[in-house]
């Protein structure tokens, strides 16, 4: 009875949407369990291809695609794959989709393929994808798995873009190829170099930690 009383009579569409479990599957990847800033998973591409915002976005969406497709297939096959060989099977599924993505990117833009280099193939070993297959898709039905993959993927894109944008802005004075600063802006070359990746990621994580600390105390 008490439960009924608590429930408000009329809920707006957005409240219903915000409280439904599927929205939660989707949103947790973007903010609460963000793969980069919170779980610190799949760091290699994060640092390697974020020297420009464009590369970061391309990498992010390629990963999202692979993540979603492998989540779908893993959740469809979750009752078929024997437990002992599940990791190997997941890796094979992921490798198949990565090969497809690799060829697709090569067909769309050779330049992009060249600048991402081996890192497209290296999506296979992105811990994020395997961990979602193991922790989520192998235990859930298709629809939540798609939402989970999409949410985690977009969280990944968001993180990559925030790194790529900062590095490109400071290292090159532009975002997505458009110049932001005036011509006499002195580029911070270090931001484009590998070290800049480490520093930028460290600063973003620091920001997240400070926010977390604030919330815990405030």
């Amino acid at each position, binding site marked *: 009875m008490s439960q009924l009383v608590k429930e408000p009579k009329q809920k707006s569409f957005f409240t219903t949407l915000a409280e439904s479990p599927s929205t939660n599957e989707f949103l947790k990847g973007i903010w609460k369990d963000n793969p980069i800033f919170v779980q*610190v*998973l799949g*760091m*290699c*591409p994060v*640092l*390697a291809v974020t020297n420009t915002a464009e590369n970061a976005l391309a990498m992010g969406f390629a990963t999202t695609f692979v993540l979603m497709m492998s989540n779908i297939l893993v959740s469809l096959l979750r009752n078929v794959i024997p437990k002992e060989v599940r*990791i*190997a099977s997941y*890796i*094979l599924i992921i*490798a*198949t989709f*990565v*090969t497809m993505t*690799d*060829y697709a990117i090569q067909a769309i833009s050779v330049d992009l393929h060249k600048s991402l280099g*081996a890192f497209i*193939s*290296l999506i*296979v*070993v*992105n*811990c994020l994808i*395997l961990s979602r297959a193991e922790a989520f898709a192998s235990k859930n039905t298709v629809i939540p798995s798609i939402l989970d993959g999409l949410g985690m993927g977009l969280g990944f894109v968001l993180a990559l873009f925030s790194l790529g944008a900062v590095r490109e802005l400071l290292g090159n004075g532009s975002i997505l190829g458009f110049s932001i600063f005036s011509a006499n802006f002195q580029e911070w070359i*270090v931001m484009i*170099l*590998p*070290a*800049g*990746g*480490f*520093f930028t*990621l*460290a600063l973003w*994580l*620091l920001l997240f*930690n*400070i926010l977390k*600390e604030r919330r815990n105390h405030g």
Partner: protein
Amino acid sequence: MDESLWYIFINASLISNFVLAYFLGICPFLGVSGKLDTASKMGGAVTFVMLISSMCAYGINTLLVAIDAPFLQLISYIVVIASTVQLVEMFVKKMSPALFRALGIFLPLITTNCAILGLALFQTNKGYGFLQSLVYALGAGIGFTLALVLMAGIRQQLDFASPPKVVKGTVITLLIAGILSLSFMGFSGLGG
């Protein structure tokens, strides 16, 4: 490709260090670099897996070129690496249970260590021959171990310092990695 073996070695281990210049193998780099002892053994395990999978990758690539099926490259590489890691895991478990426990989850995770797959892909892209591939793998492994051990040494010292709470853990590790990466840039031009 007629790069000298010495150059390949120096290039893989110092100039283009896999961890600090190519960002490959960051997960174990951040995860297992807490203790000097574990770090060096992890480095050893990774170097071993690298050597074996580099040899296998060379063989597979020759075969795939022969049957004209380059799209199988990625899938076959990853299968070989996974089996090698399984082999190393069984070996370590038998030979040194203590090390097995210390490495914990990170041992099976060598499979998803980008450094190893990256190595296989790079050596194919660069068109290295058998001996060159082997030297490349050795250099990459030693470079990985070097980065891991340096990091572990610094982090052990860090235990005695008291950084602000917000930078503890990953943040300070990444900052140190950035500084290490800057200092490794000093090696460029070495080895001719």
